[in-house]
């Protein structure tokens, strides 16, 4: 082996790679993911000194590809919790934006027609909107049905994004050599 030539930039690249791998290993048992990371860190140290950071990281493949290989060797796929959280967040953000557009549209219509107050319901959420020369505004009353509907929609988005069906016994199991 050649003399150590690891630079600060190499260490940053390795750290960034391992961080992305950690994200890609979502769903793995934490102890297993930590073991993988620790083993890789030591081996990468050697590889970087031997062939340079660029080649060492290239040989591993992208963090996503490497995580997929570890997953394939595990014999069965694991749920992707982070993807589920992102999916639930995006759906929640979409609902919030569409709800805001609906309320602002209602207020705008009232203002255009000379003012007034209207009681509406959007996604089981009752709201009162008013608009006119004296001011604009809206009032929302949270209730159990609307909260339950929101919770169900977010839970479904999370389950689909996280591929929770992978937890079911026998689903996606692959034979190992």
């Amino acid at each position, binding site marked *: 082996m050649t003399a150590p030539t690891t630079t600060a930039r190499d260490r940053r690249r390795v750290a960034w790679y391992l961080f992305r791998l950690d994200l890609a290993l979502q769903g793995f048992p934490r102890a*297993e993911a930590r073991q993988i990371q620790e083993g890789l860190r030591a081996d990468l140290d*050697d590889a970087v000194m*031997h062939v340079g950071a660029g080649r060492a990281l290239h040989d591993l493949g992208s963090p996503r590809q490497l995580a997929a290989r570890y997953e394939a060797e595990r014999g069965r796929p694991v749920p992707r919790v982070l993807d589920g959280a992102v999916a639930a967040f995006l759906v929640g953000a979409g609902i919030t934006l569409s709800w805001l557009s609906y309320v602002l549209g209602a207020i705008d219509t009232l203002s255009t027609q000379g003012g007034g107050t209207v009681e509406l319901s959007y996604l089981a959420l009752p709201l009162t909107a008013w608009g006119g020369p004296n001011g604009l505004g809206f009032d929302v009353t949270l209730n159990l049905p609307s909260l339950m509907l929101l919770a169900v929609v977010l839970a479904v988005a999370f389950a689909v994004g996280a591929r929770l069906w992978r937890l079911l016994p026998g689903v996606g199991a692959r034979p190992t050599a």
Partner: protein
Amino acid sequence: MSGTEILADASRDPQLLKGVLPMLVLRTLQEEETYGYALVVRLQEAGLPGLSTGTVYPVLARLERDGLVTARLAPSASGPARKYYRPTAAGEERLVRAVAAWEALGRTVARVLAPDDAPPPRPPTDHPPGARA
């Protein structure tokens, strides 16, 4: 094409390599306890130059999880402690079985591919049954 070139080609074909890689890893570790990166280098030098660390490490992790290899941490002068692997008794047994299976498969493949042993060509079967005398 030489044997080494054939092996080099095999290392570029993931499907071809997938079935034999655990056996090669166990055999290499049987010869000498070593750590992940050195293991990859040894396999590359043995005639698999296209073999990448990204292919070997997951196999190594699986062998460890299945109890076929055991690992111990040893300090390294260059950085974090290295994990040195060697086959367990179960790993040795698995290796014996894998080698026997590989040799049997190799014999079968060789027999099928050998031109002298190839069965004589079958007559054309485009005639309906009973049409021939």
